[in-house]
């Protein structure tokens, strides 16, 4: 008989249960679908639940397992996919009204990999519209709520994936991180999220916000689960020119190593002071103390140009986004609004974009269009690219001294819904610690550091040099074990029971 708490186990433990014949993928998938049915009306983590498809995939895996077929380690473990990733036959909206009802005719490369490995796809998770936001409030389909407190945001843009994993609706989820959209939601929901090295995971099939910054990655409850999922979705893809040719690293092995002796950890001076909430800072410092006691060496490093990273990011990202979003014009797919008066192609485009895009998307399109305009290009886009180079140099200099860098993932715990939605610059400040890694293409992980202000989770972020993602799993796995020993279990166990959730 299936234990009702199986959905609270890690994905690795669920996979082990499947392997041991303790449960079937169909049962496991059904348990998660039941959980979604029970709690998601309140959370709104999912935009689409593909019950039949998931169960069919689960039964297929069960049959293959029964036939003695060699299966992927995660085969049969269900997963949720951020709605910015295209899924053949499943609606994909990127959280925007302009794509309402669009069903892609093809799968993203990472989705192909999930399907090939036999992971039933539970559905598509909510997100800020086109991944533009830090709270999931800009979704055209209503905000996702934080499982720790329904009045709080779950972070963004990938609030749906983080909330789904945090609320046990899914053991695994896919996120995308352009400026922190995997890591910041991880921090404020007490979950784990990894932004891999740029190019580690194919972008083919990710609806682009900013092509040079976007990177898909794992959203999970444990570091090991992230490592397993990262190994599955990574690898060279001939359909993405920016995909790295490197072989996939041994991330899970690194996550299980639990050894940080001699590891040099650099604390980024520019990312721990002003603007960071006291308890968030306290949990960060305590985490570092744990690592130091375990044999790591903690040093302070300066990355002076990180100060300009946010400004550069908010030029480069909107510039690329303004261009990437030009294709949403009502001509070939998605929403088409036909104005009554003089419905020329140009007027259809205008009406469609006017009605289909939300305010934040329009704001960024305007910013980007302006930044790329003749006469302004050098001052804005050109200067921002120079800052990007300087940020990369800061990283390079820092990694001469240390193996990994550390900072709090986000400046504060989850804020209240509506608190910052009308103050874009305050909202943008959420990404201050996460953005540098996107500008440099380097990898980052966020994992829970403890409970901070208002008893809500805070996150710690580690950053590694490009292509050294293993180090993140090594330090993350070690810290997670140390903290869970101190807490007496996972941080998520401290989360309040959800109203609709009877499964404990």
């Amino acid at each position, binding site marked *: 008989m299936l234990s009702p708490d199986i959905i609270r186990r890690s994905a690795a433990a669920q996979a082990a249960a499947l392997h041991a014949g303790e449960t079937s993928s169909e049962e496991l998938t059904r348990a998660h679908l039941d959980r979604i049915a029970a709690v998601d009306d309140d959370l709104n983590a999912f935009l689409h639940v593909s019950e039949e498809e998931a169960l069919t995939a689960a039964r297929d895996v069960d049959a293959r397992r029964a036939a003695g077929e060699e299966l992927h380690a995660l085969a049969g473990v269900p997963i949720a996919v951020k709605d910015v990733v295209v899924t053949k036959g499943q609606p994909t909206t990127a959280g925007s009204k302009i794509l309402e009802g669009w069903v892609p005719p093809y799968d993203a490369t990472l989705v192909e990999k999930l399907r090939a490995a036999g992971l039933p796809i539970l559905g598509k998770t909510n997100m800020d519209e086109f991944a533009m936001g830090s709270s999931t409030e800009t979704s055209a389909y209503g905000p996702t709520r934080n499982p720790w407190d329904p009045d709080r945001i779950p972070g963004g843009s990938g609030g749906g994936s983080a909330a789904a994993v945090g609320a046990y609706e899914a053991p695994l989820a896919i996120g995308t991180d352009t400026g922190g959209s995997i890591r910041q939601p991880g921090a404020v929901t007490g979950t784990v999220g990894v932004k891999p090295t740029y190019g580690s995971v194919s972008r083919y099939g990710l609806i682009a916000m900013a092509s040079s910054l976007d990177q898909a990655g794992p959203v999970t409850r444990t570091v090991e689960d992230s490592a397993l999922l990262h190994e599955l979705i990574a690898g060279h893809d001939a359909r993405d020119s920016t995909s790295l040719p490197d072989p996939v690293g041994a991330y899970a092995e690194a996550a299980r190593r639990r050894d940080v002796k001699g590891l040099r950890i650099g604390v980024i001076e520019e990312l721990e002071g002003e603007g960071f909430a006291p308890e968030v800072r306290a949990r960060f410092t305590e985490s570092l103390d744990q690592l130091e006691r375990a044999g790591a060496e903690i040093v302070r490093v300066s990355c002076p140009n990180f100060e300009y990273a946010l400004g550069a990011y908010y030029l480069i990202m909107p510039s690329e986004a303004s261009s990437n979003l030009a294709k949403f014009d009502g001509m070939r797919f998605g929403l088409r609004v036909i104005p009554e008066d003089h419905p020329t192609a140009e007027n259809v485009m205008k009406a469609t974009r006017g009605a289909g895009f939300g305010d934040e998307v329009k704001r960024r399109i305007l910013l980007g269009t302006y930044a790329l*305009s003749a006469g302004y290009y050098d001052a804005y886009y050109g200067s921002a690219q120079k800052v990007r180079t300087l940020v990369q140099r800061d990283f390079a200099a820092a990694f001469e001294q240390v193996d990994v860098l550390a900072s709090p993932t986000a400046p504060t715990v989850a804020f209240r819904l509506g608190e910052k939605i009308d103050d874009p610059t305050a909202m943008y400040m959420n990404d201050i610690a996460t953005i540098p890694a996107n500008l440099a293409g380097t990898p980052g992980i966020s994992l829970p550091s403890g409970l901070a202000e208002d008893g809500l989770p805070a996150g710690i972020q580690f950053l590694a040099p490009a292509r050294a993602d293993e180090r993140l799993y090594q330090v993350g796995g070690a810290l997670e074990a140390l903290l869970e020993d101190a807490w007496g279990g996972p941080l998520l166990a401290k989360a309040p029971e959800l109203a609709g959730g009877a499964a404990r």
Partner: protein
Amino acid sequence: MTTTDITPVDFDEAIDRYDPVLGIEVHVELGTATKMFDGAPNIFAAEPNTAITPTSLGLPGSLPVVNGKAVEYAIRIGLALNCSIAETCRFARKQYFYPDLTKNFQTSQYDEPIAFDGWVDVELEDGEIVRVEIERAHMEEDAGKNTHVGGATGRIHGATHSQVDYNRAGVPLVEIVTKPIPDTKGRAPEVAAAYVRTLRDIFRALDVSEARMERGNVRADVNVSLRTDPSAPLGTRTETKNVNSFRSIERTVRFEISRQAGLLDAGEQIVQETRHFHEDTGGTSSGRPKSDAEDYRYFPEPDLVPVAPSRAWVEEIRAALPELPAARRRRLLGEWGFSDLEMRDVINAGALDLIEQTVAAGASAQSARKWWMGELARVAKDREVEIEALSITPAQVAELQGLVDGKKINDKIAKQVLGKVLDGAGDPAAIVEAEGLAVVSDDSVLTSAVDQAIADNPDVVAKIQGGKVQAIGALIGPIMKATRGQADAGRVREIIMDKLGVS
């Protein structure tokens, strides 16, 4: 009075008063198997919207990947035009909204073209060589094709709706941009057309494109400006878009020179704008103003990594370049021993390839030239088709000439056989065989014909025997007639002289 009311100036007068400067942008569609940035087939005239992938349709999530073959072709073109090849270059996005553009930006190259700073020599009809400087050659993708339904003549004006076919979207293009072409004076129209023709020939020689003008494989944007004299700064130019035949290019330049001269004479300003050429009137009309307000917001394409062709690869491509048309013409001129004038006539008639293939099939150069520039050129003219469109192959022409050379048939019969080949009756030797057209040189047949002729024409015989040997023709005529022209005339003459005892 509006500018459109101003009467164009006579072309020769315009040239007397103004110095024209040309600038030509040529787009060539590359004949790669797949498109520039995705695996969709690069084919002409498939069912609408069938040669597409998520990428060439610009679907959300799709990404481009550079077609290596297209890069190779672009380098071939660059090298053939004596350009430098960039060690590294990037694609850029040229952004504007139009329904035929799937992403609402065109992936092109902006300030980093794959090839730059080249030149090409253009030979005019009279043999004069004009060197055209090449600014750059860059790679880009074609757009889809809009069809406007419900209005007159397929134009958007008056149309009720439009349809878009994205089969062409993403087809690889190379755009070749000249530097300003000065000093062409009254030959400007001819230079413009000859330049594009030269490129067309180069594309074909390089085997990078079918380069068929009528299919739009090669399209020219023709820039024309006038200045008062060659030392003056460049005048304001107009750009006539998508001119797609050599004749139209000439007419465009001629018309624009006359039109602009008319405006300048009247003290008007030339408006910098794009214009459209009209086949029916031979004139151009205003398109859209091309002012500084047009801002494509170019920026480097972040979905693509830079293209960095290794020097070794570039040299490999250079070494494998085929013989280019100009060099080939020089070589053939030497091999064939034609006069310069003969050679130019051959080139202007589009018969160079045909003659070369005929020679390759065994005919002498002069005999090949005689057929193609003589009888076949006449037939082509009568039938109003291009000479290469005639339904006869160089091998058939060579076979025909072989029959003449081997004295199987004479020239007169050869022309008859040629007509039959053109009418689809088969190969020359088979026609001669089947229809019994071979020369009759059998002495027994000829002797009896001669005997008959001698018997029928005693007075002629008397003349010949009386010393008027040239009267022998009067006997040969009836013999040829009796043998339907197939008698070996030389042998007939010998038999007559023998019979009549004259020498």
